[in-house]
């Protein structure tokens, strides 16, 4: 067994274990920490696949940004010590069955399928190439989606502010309801 295989199985085990913990943990803050661990392990996978840039992004944006955001919102809405009531067995069972069925279906399909290996030479994904094609107007260029995403992010930012703002339309309405 070579090192990268060991590495892969280690990461996989971490991902799966922490994923399961994320969705089963009865303390929400712990769930967030488990999620963080999942995301970090995932970035390890990216490193393994030789996508350093994306791994970095995964770490900073996902693990750093989003998880922090989630933790903040947890702090705003819940008590840290609060424990959830366990999920009803009926509901968990049904969900588990549906998920398991889906998983089995997907896995059998994957195992049935013969993936042909690529004969092309692997491309070196360095920062230079990424930057170039991200800003390129060519056929392979991604300038348009890039711009669209930037606008989307801006819009999401504004939307987040507007929606979460106190005294927004929803708030007034709830006050009207109280009256």
């Amino acid at each position, binding site marked *: 067994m070579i090192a990268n295989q060991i590495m892969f199985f280690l990461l996989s085990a971490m991902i799966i274990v922490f994923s399961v913990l994320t969705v089963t943990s009865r303390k929400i803050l712990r769930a967030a920490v488990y999620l963080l661990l999942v995301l970090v392990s995932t970035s390890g996978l990216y490193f393994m696949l030789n996508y350093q840039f994306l791994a970095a992004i995964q770490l900073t944006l996902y693990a750093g940004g989003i998880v922090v955001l989630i933790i903040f919102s947890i702090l705003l809405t819940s008590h840290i010590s609060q424990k959830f009531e366990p999920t009803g067995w009926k*509901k968990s069972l*049904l*969900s588990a069955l*549906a*998920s398991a*069925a*889906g998983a089995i*279906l997907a896995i059998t*399909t994957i195992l049935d399928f013969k993936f042909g290996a690529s004969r092309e030479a692997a491309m070196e994904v360095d920062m230079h190439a990424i930057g170039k094609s991200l800003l390129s107007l060519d056929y392979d260029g991604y300038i348009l989606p890039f711009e669209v995403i930037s606008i989307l992010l801006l819009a999401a930012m504004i939307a987040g502010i507007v929606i979460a703002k106190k005294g927004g339309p929803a708030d007034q309405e709830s006050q009207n309801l109280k009256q």
Partner: protein
Amino acid sequence: MINFTYTVWILIIPFIMFIFLGLAGHKIGPKLSGLLGTGALAVITALSYITAYKYFFATPKAGDVFKAILAANTTWLQFTDKLHIDIGVLVDPISVMMLIVVTTVSFMVHIYSTGYMKGEKGYERYFAFLSLFSFSMLGLVVAPNIFQMYIFWELVGVSSYLLIGFYYEKPSAVAASKKAFIVTRFADLGFLIGILLLSFHTKTFDFITLTDPSGPAIAQAGGASFLGLSVITWSMIFVYLGGAGKSAMFPFHIWLPDAMEGPTPVSALIHAATMVVAGVYLVARMFPVYSLAAPVALKVVAYVGGFSSLFAAIIACTQTDIKRVLAYSTISQIGYMMLALGVSGYGGHEGLGYMASMFHLFTHALFKALLFLGAGAIIHAVHTNLMTEMGGLRKYLPITHLTFLIACLTIAGIPPFSGFFSKDEILAAAFQSNKILFAVEYAVAGLTAFYMFRLYFNIFWGKETQYQHTPHEAPFSMTIPLIILALGAVFAGWIPFNKLVTSDGQAFESSIEWGVAIPSILIGVLGIFVAMVMYRKENNIPERLAATFKNTYKLAYHKFYIDEFYLFVTKKIIFRYISEPIAWFDRHIIDGTMNSIATVTQVVSFRIRKFQSGQLQQYAFVFISGAVLLAVLMIYIWYW
């Protein structure tokens, strides 16, 4: 050839007058309206007389025959290449004769009405309706094709409806008008079906083509048959249904006595002299077809006519409302005319009945109008319709009395009055062809004399009645028409109808058949005598007689319960057992089906709306399970 185009004015003038009086009558006031209406009638009366003179005496005959002349004709509505409704004027012996009858009586009635209707509310309306009636009746008379006749047939129906219901605030008048319209409408349905059948087989509406003895209608006689009778026979029977309705033949007679709810001059004009004889005119119009192609239909005409005349005469003997007596007498007399047509043959002396019928139509129009106008003058004087409330009026109403007596003698068939001549011809015709009907007619002649003189004696003699205020003679505007019509009733018998109005247009010789006439005179006199015994002085013979024949009397008094039978059929059967179930069926079954479709949809949607629970995870669960299921289906079932 003399030009008769001007005859279209006979139609145009009253029509314009109707529109004008109808729209502007209340603006110009009653006096001017009456004057205008009467004036218009005077003009068309003059035109009619000129036409008659020119047609009978100034137009050269083609061989011995009076030719039918199409004075004007224009296509009004095109159906197919061959079938089209034309509006036009046909001048031939019977149409000219009818022109004379209609305009004369109508003119008299107009004059009479200016006095009779004075001060009535709706005076202008009355004259407008009279103009409408004159227009439609004249249009009917001059119709050159059967469809024009049908059009004006309907129009006279509606003007009759409007005039019967003239006193529209009186419920009985409203009911009577409705009844008249619906009964005749029902008969017209037969007429229309007859027209359609006829036109389907002959491809024409035109009278000249239809009645041409060698034309298609008559040639079709041996054609397709249905239930043992030829199609032409069937269509002629259907056409006759229309005529029977308008002419109040049994069993469509029920509307006519009720129609007396209208103003009396209207009864005189429409329900005695002109409109009700339209049925006779129709049969006469189609006579060659009846005679040559549909003898069975003609037989039906004869028997229905004979039965109606007897039936109505019996009822007339028991009625007390003078207008109703006259109405039944009208039915009886029209039955005479129908019978005369029915027993007639075609051409030459064979056509005696046809000539007699037209002759009687003519004289009857005069004396029946006279009777009605006289009755109007009486009612005008004493303000009641019931003869039981009258008596001894001869002193107060001398002119009316005299003219009424003349009319009664005329209708009883006493020579030398006109009724005698025409009735004699009818009896002679019946004698030649059908002895049963002949016997019936003798009986009717006696009954006629009896009930007319019963009326006469009851009104003018009988018990002395105290009136609330002394009756006085009618104004000149009313008595002058009486006198003119009385003169007509006296002298019309001398008109040589056998030279002028015959079935095939050719003159033939006929003389009074004394062998038939003398018994009929005797029977008439007998009737008069019986009436005189019973009613001249107040006595109790009538009551005793009525008590003796209690059941018969009761039956006749209640008009043989025909009205009740009709009421039963319409109210009970049609309304209750057809219409109401249909209305119920529509609301509950058909509409109920539609509603229940809607209800089912609604119930189902209430059930399935529970799926929309608002539970996000439930949706997601369904979605994912569904997706997995679909994937399984796609992968393992479709492709394997």
